């Protein structure tokens, strides 16, 4: 209706005529191909130019700036060597092997050592320690009676030296790339030449892409009837790895070609080569991707790249074609045949002589274990380092800035703990087949004086990046809580080790008509016992009675005073360790006891350097005196009696020296604990099941043996005798009595020594004894 096209209403004789004439004109005119072509070309050139500008910006931005994200490298403590240091030849040998030192004749190059019995000659590598770089040194170390007797360098006595620390892991970004950055001049010239001749022999002639190379590859491929050779130049390979994805498409290939040309326009061949040598992917170590020849050299051959021989160089160069396919560990035959091809190319181009080729070809492929100490990681300890580092550094900086973190980990001790735990759990599971594969463990070892964490075990598979029981498992600590009750009593001034406690059945009112009636483990009551016996035999009834007597709040407060950061509920069950804590938490509290009352945060780091070697942070000993040293030594004496004649007396047969210890077993034997310290180290060991089910084990049977084996290989140093104490005889009523009377001698702080002593069988009202001064005057 009204929506008819308006055209139809228009006069038909005018407009169509005009239209016709325009169309005709257009038809008569030839299509302006040239004009459109010109326009298209202009637009195309414009688009191409914009694209090229964009590509150029991409290339320059990435290449001019920092090329890689560099994960923080984490190192163990360096091994200090000085005359008088306690050290077995076995330990020194192990640390050298872990540090990728090779044993041989008299060493003439860094990285080698010579051993003759207890005499070592070590050609130490140069290393940038956190407090300064040190050059290579050839040291002669003489050990006698498990102590370093002398250190000589060019026949001069050396007071102090150290070995470079072991690499123990990295703090990686999500892609987990790791590399050891080297400058071009650090790579052996033979390696660079072999790489160029094998991968891109026209590298120094082309401008990013090589038509000759493509042509040659096509010929080879045609002859072979398949793709056996790529035509990509080293520059193209670098562009592919560095800027692009691994997707295979023509667009990507074109982009790669242009970017290669741009790269060559802006940067020298040397810069491109150096980047390639550091970028190329050469293998995988668990979560860690091995990039660059520098790291690959250490990873496969345990050597810095300068120390590689011809055969090893050819093996690594051969891997560029396919790091997995030619992996010398997994596919040694393939790797060897590829290596021999590379050796042939090297000889063909006079990089090596024919005799060198023959010699290298006769060698078998000898790689080192990927799991060896020098390349494996220590996940549990690394987690602690990462947590503590994040108090001072942003995670993004830790993952990207190439920081070097020097830690307190003692590899010898760590290996001792790992081995002891693994062997003992296997033994337990053989004895108790129902526990097969179900037992787990965790351990923390610190130095008693400095609170440095020396070993940390997060589970029975120490290389597994999984649940870290040492830091995160929250388990009832059982009788490890008891010393805090006894400390509270000793501090009160009303109790001493000879005080009498009742171990009769006890009932604690919980309010609301509820009663708590804890029992001893053996369900036997022991009547009156000394406070010392209560601790050494770990009597529950006596301890609960004492704890309620000294005050629940005071006991709970002592947990916090000694280093526990969370507040405990004021339940009576805390007296028997119904407190879920991690082994690390337990170590924090016992550290205060072991260090004479100083509360010290457990520390996993010594120092942090930036990528250039500047010292960013150093972490020394920190602490504050919270409990008097004398009270702590008094408590320590009680803990020493636990090994003397208490629940940890099994230790005495193996180590007949004063050691402070406490066993712990939680309700229904769900957790087995052991704490022990000597003059140098504190160790906490936990054994239990992840599903928190009961086990047929105790602290003394499950955790103590792990502690024992670890400390035996470390070497135990007996606790120094406590100072500032006198000895007084106490009878079975808990009264101070004369020396001639029946009773036991107990230590008392000198300022608490009684002025009056009871006579035998009598109480308090004894005649005052004359002192020797009375006799003299």
């Amino acid at each position: 209706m009204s929506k008819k096209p308006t055209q139809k209403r228009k006069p038909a004789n005018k407009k169509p005529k005009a239209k016709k004439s325009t169309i005709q004109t257009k038809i008569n005119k030839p299509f302006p191909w040239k004009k459109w072509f010109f326009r298209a070309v202009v637009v195309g050139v414009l688009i191409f130019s914009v694209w090229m500008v964009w590509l150029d910006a991409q290339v320059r931005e990435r290449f001019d700036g920092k090329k890689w994200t560099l994960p923080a490298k984490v190192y163990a403590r360096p091994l200090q060597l000085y005359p008088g240091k306690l050290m077995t030849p076995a330990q020194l040998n192990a640390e050298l092997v872990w540090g990728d030192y090779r044993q041989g004749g008299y060493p003439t190059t860094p990285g080698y050592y010579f051993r003759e019995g207890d005499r070592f000659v070590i050609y130490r590598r140069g290393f940038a320690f956190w407090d300064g770089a040190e050059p290579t040194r050839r040291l002669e170390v003489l050990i006698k009676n498990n102590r370093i007797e002398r250190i000589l360098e060019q026949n001069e006595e050396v007071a102090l030296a150290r070995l470079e620390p072991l690499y123990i892991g990295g703090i990686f970004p999500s892609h987990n790339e790791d590399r050891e950055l080297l400058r071009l001049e650090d790579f052996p010239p033979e390696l660079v030449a072999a790489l160029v001749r094998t991968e891109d022999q026209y590298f120094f002639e082309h401008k990013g892409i090589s038509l000759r190379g493509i042509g040659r590859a096509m010929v080879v491929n045609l002859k072979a009837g398949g793709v056996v050779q790529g035509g990509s130049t080293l520059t193209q390979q670098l562009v592919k790895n560095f800027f692009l994805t691994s997707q295979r498409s023509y667009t990507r290939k074109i982009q790669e070609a242009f970017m290669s040309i741009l790269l060559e326009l802006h940067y020298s061949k040397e810069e491109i080569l150096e980047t390639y040598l550091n970028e190329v992917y050469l293998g995988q170590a668990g979560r860690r991707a091995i990039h660059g020849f520098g790291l690959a050299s250490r990873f496969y051959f345990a050597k810095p790249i300068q120390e590689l021989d011809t055969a090893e160089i050819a093996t690594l160069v051969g891997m560029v074609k396919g790091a997995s396919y030619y992996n010398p560990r997994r596919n040694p035959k393939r790797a060897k045949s590829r290596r021999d091809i590379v050796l042939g190319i090297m000889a063909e181009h006079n990089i090596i002589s024919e005799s060198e080729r023959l010699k290298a070809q006769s060698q078998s492929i000898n790689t080192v274990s990927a799991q060896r100490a020098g390349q494996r990681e220590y996940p549990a300890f690394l987690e602690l380092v990462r947590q503590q580092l994040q108090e001072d550094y942003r995670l993004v900086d830790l993952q990207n800035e190439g920081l070097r973190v020097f830690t307190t980990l003692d590899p010898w001790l760590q290996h001792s703990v790992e081995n002891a735990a693994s062997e003992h759990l296997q033994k337990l599971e053989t004895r108790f087949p129902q526990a097969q594969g179900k037992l787990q463990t965790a351990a923390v070892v610190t130095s008693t004086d400095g609170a440095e964490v020396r070993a940390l075990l997060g589970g029975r598979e120490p290389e597994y990046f999984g649940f870290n029981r040492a830091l995160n498992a929250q388990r009832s600590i059982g009788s490890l809580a008891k010393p805090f009750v006894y400390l509270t009593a000793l501090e009160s001034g009303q109790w001493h080790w000879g005080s009498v406690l009742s171990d009769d059945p006890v009932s604690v009112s919980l309010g609301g008509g509820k009663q708590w009636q804890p029992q001893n483990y053996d369900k036997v009551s022991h009547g009156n016992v000394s406070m010392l016996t209560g601790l050494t035999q770990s009597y529950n009834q006596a301890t609960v009675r004492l704890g309620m007597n000294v005050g629940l709040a005071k006991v709970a407060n002592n947990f916090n005073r000694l280093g526990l950061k969370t507040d405990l509920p004021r339940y009576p069950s805390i007296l028997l360790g119904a407190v879920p804590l991690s082994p690390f938490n337990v170590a924090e509290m016992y550290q205060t006891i072991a260090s004479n009352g100083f509360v010290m945060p457990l520390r996993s780091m010594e120092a942090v350097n930036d990528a250039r070697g500047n010292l960013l942070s150093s972490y020394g000993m920190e602490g504050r005196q919270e409990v008097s040293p004398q009270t702590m030594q008094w408590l320590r004496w009680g803990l020493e009696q636990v090994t003397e004649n208490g629940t940890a007396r099994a230790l005495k047969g193996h180590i007949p020296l004063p050691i402070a210890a406490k066993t712990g077993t939680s309700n229904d034997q769900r957790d087995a604990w052991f704490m022990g310290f000597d003059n140098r180290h504190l160790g906490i060991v936990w054994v239990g099941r992840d599903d928190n089910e009961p086990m047929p084990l105790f602290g003394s049977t499950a955790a103590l043996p792990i502690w024992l084996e670890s400390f035996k290989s470390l070497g135990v140093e007996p606790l120094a005798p406590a100072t500032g104490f006198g000895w007084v005889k106490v009878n079975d009523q808990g009264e101070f009595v004369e020396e001639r009377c029946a009773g036991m001698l107990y230590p008392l702080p000198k300022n608490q020594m009684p002025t009056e002593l009871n006579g035998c069988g009598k109480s308090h009202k004894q005649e005052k004894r004359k002192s020797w001064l009375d006799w003299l005057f």
Partner: protein
Amino acid sequence: MVRLVVLTLLLILTGCTQKHMIDAVDDTAQAPLPTMDNGRLAALDEGESHPALISLYQKAEQARQAQQWQLVFTYLDQARQIQPRSATVLYRLAWASLQANNPAQAEQFAQRGLIYAESGSAVEKRLYALLAQSLNRQGRVMEAYSADQKAH
């Protein structure tokens, strides 16, 4: 008369023991005290010590003169790790802390050193003197006075 003779003998013996103890302190304190300059330690590397400690003290002293306090503490902490219970190492840590304007840390090191210092020894007195200074700088005058009394 007999009593007088016994008393005299005892006093002589006590004197001998006293002398012996002082010698023993010098032997067992691992690092005899550095010399003092107007009542203060002049340098970290003074005095005799285990050669390993001397080498660290020398580095620490160089760093101190360059006011590189982080390095000072890292060298002294290495010395502490070699002899963790040496009162003289802890004394140096306390002294350096005070110089680095950290009296709270100096107080803790001094207290720590006092645990291992022989009773009545020279190092104990100097540790008390340092403790007094560090307490004074924290405004804890009464405690400082008490420590100072023990220093003399």
